[in-house]
């Protein structure tokens, strides 16, 4: 079987690294080669620069910058060889690391302009130290003993305590933020809400893509249906509040999931992906052009905020703060929104985990593995696919309704293909079918993009460089790196849904590694 070979991990790279030892002359030659290449490649890109002057282009030369770049490559290559390449003695590793840090610090004093000379050297040293630390971490990780069983048990042993700790953290997060970061509380709670929205969307899509194995590139359509359902219901019928519209939005989105499910029942893989992609776009284009119904590109504003058992989060008489005798603060509403999305996300997770243990959930996973075998076992693949689409879409719709109430405004712009791509990337990077992986991936991706907005301090050191504009590149590189090191996502383990009671001690987690005996 072709797939059998995919399951067993190949020999770890650490083993091949141990062959041979570090030789200075070889490493220096290697580094020189890399530096020469960098010099050739950078000759035009770094060494020369054209500026627009009064009467055309003026060529200026930046040989110092080119020299620095070559030097960084030379030292960096040496460091890489010492840390990640052949087995090098500790003294050599420390020596190369020292040279590298000193080199970076030296270049900083030359190149950078902001701050005093020692400050620049210090920043350079810290930067160099950081790079060395990261490389050292990678080296340690790659030289770890062969994973297999020991690691699996360790992971299993920590899985439950970590899970409990994360749940506690999620439950207390708003209060931690208001206590420790009072200055930026709104910003951070907003970010937490955003991350949780994507966690929920990721969990919803995980049912379709991760469990049932149906590649859906148009998941944002259901998110849009949910958001517009709530926006239209609440603005057309003022008596409908968030809590009564929420289930309706979920149902409507679920219904559209079934509507999409029917025509694509026969499709799989690439073909299914294309059709769902088209469906996502159709919904968006309809929302954009059906002006009478959706108000077109202007969107729908004035979507009501959620209430707490009828109490609005407003200043003065009858508001939430007034009722409970608190001092009014706008942050209350954000904390409330946070708990709503947390509850919705938990609901999604709970339902998914329960369904996985029921026949329908097992049928989803079997469908992902082998559709023909499913049919041969009497499983109705039509219903199985439709339920996966419907339930996944329903959770997307619930998240959409939440999105509408949080923003107070919906427009087709919020539901572009980019959203579908991000949600799918969360599911894939997290590890298909893994609930915990979705949490990690959503935090890293959504939180990471936001955090990269705050790296403008780099610009103070390198004038003329606006790092914020590079955040999508950094982000893309990070995704490529993850896919290289963890090709099956952050969490590639799969817990079996059926374990016999008396054999529980065997540990579901050994099993998922294919190592349980």
């Amino acid at each position, binding site marked *: 079987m072709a797939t059998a070979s995919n399951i067993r991990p190949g020999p770890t790279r650490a083993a091949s690294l141990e062959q041979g030892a570090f030789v200075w002359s070889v490493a220096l030659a290697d580094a020189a080669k890399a530096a020469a290449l960098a010099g050739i490649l950078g000759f035009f890109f770094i060494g020369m620069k054209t500026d627009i002057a009064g009467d055309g282009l003026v060529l200026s030369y930046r040989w110092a910058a080119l020299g620095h770049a070559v030097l960084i490559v030379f030292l960096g290559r040496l460091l890489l060889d010492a840390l990640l390449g052949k087995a090098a003695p500790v003294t050599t590793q420390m020596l190369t690391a020292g040279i590298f840090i000193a080199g970076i610090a030296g270049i900083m004093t030359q190149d950078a302009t902001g701050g005093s000379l020692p400050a620049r050297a210090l920043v350079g040293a810290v930067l160099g130290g950081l790079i060395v630390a990261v490389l050292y971490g990678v080296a340690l990780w790659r030289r770890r003993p062969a994973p297999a069983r020991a690691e699996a048990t360790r992971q299993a042993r920590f899985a439950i305590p970590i899970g409990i700790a994360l749940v506690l953290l999620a439950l207390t997060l708003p209060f931690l933020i208001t206590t420790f970061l009072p200055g930026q509380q709104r910003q951070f709670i907003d970010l937490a809400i955003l991350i949780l929205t994507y966690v929920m969307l990721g969990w919803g899509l995980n049912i379709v893509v991760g469990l049932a194995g149906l590649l859906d590139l148009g998941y944002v359509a259901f998110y849009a249906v949910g958001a517009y359902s709530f926006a239209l219901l609440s603005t057309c019928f003022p008596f409908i509040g968030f809590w009564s519209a929420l289930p309706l939005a979920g149902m409507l989105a679920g219904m559209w999931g079934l509507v999409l499910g029917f025509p694509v029942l026969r499709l799989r893989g690439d073909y299914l992906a294309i059709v769902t992609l088209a469906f996502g776009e159709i919904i968006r284009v309809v929302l954009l052009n059906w002006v009478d119904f959706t108000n077109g590109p202007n969107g729908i504003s004035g979507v009501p905020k959620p209430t707490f058992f009828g109490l609005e989060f407003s200043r003065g008489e009858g508001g939430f703060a007034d009722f409970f005798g608190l001092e009014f603060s706008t942050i209350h509403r954000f904390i409330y929104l946070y708990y709503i999305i947390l509850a919705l996300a938990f609901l999604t997770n709970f339902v998914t985990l329960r369904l996985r243990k029921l026949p329908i959930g097992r049928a989803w996973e079997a469908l992902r593995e082998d559709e023909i075998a499913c049919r041969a076992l009497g499983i109705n693949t039509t219903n199985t696919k439709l339920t996966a689409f419907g339930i996944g879409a329903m959770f997307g719709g619930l998240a959409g309704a939440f999105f509408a109430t949080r923003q107070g405004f919906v427009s087709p712009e919020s539901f572009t293909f980019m959203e579908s791509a991000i949600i799918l990337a969360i599911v894939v990077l997290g590890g298909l079918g893994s609930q915990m992986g979705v949490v990690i991936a959503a935090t890293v991706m959504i939180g990471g993009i936001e955090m990269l907005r705050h790296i403008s301090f780099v610009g103070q050191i390198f004038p003329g460089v606006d790092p914020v504009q590079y955040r999508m590149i950094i982000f893309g590189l990070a995704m490529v790196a993850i896919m290289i090191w963890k090709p099956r996502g952050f969490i590639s383990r799969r817990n079996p849904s059926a374990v016999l009671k008396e054999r529980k001690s065997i540990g579901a987690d050994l099993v998922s590694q294919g190592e*349980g005996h």
Partner: protein
Amino acid sequence: MSALLSVEGVAAGYGKITALHGVDLQIHAGEIVTLIGANGAGKSTLMMTICGSPQARSGRVVYDGRDITRQPTHLTMRQGIAQSPEGRRIFQRMTVLENLRLGASVVSPEYFDADLARMYDLFPRLKERESQRGGTLSGGEQQMLAIARALMGRPKLLLLDEPSLGLAPLIVRHIFEVIRELNQREGLTVFLVEQNAFHALKLAHRAYVMVNGRITMSGTGQDLLNNDDVRAAYLEGGRRETAGA
């Protein structure tokens, strides 16, 4: 005696290709019937046509007095037919236990524990491998799992498509022994499609030979074993000296 399954003048194929040209075949309750033939003769197509995928273009498939020719596959599989498909088609990333549970999708959950114990009796190897993923099993173990998974559906008729494919002779013998045992002890009806003609014919009560989508010969397993044409076509090559054993 009426047949448990009868295939009457069935023609079937994929797209423009017709793989079966009017096949007639009967399987009576309690029998082991084997269908032998070369690669591409249409054996697997016949088995899949019985299950309804692809559906027969003409002719009828009657099971237990009901016409199942145009019935969706999953309904047929709920009426007491189970299949161990060609290439085993184990759920690779799911454990042995989960595979068996999926096999029991069509029966009431109350039978599960007893049936599971029965499967572990038949194939003790599967008990050892219970929490291992299907894809990490050896070929023989996967075949045992495929048969056990089919049996978990409590079938009256078991369809086996090339259970000996790619397996060591010792394991083939073990699997055929289990089939014989199931047939004798529990009266399970078995329809076996095989290329390994020697073992299949020895095991079967009756046998059919298929060539290019047509049944060319039929008889008891022993008859066909002794038939010169069959020997020449399917049994030559190292088998002759053991044929008498």
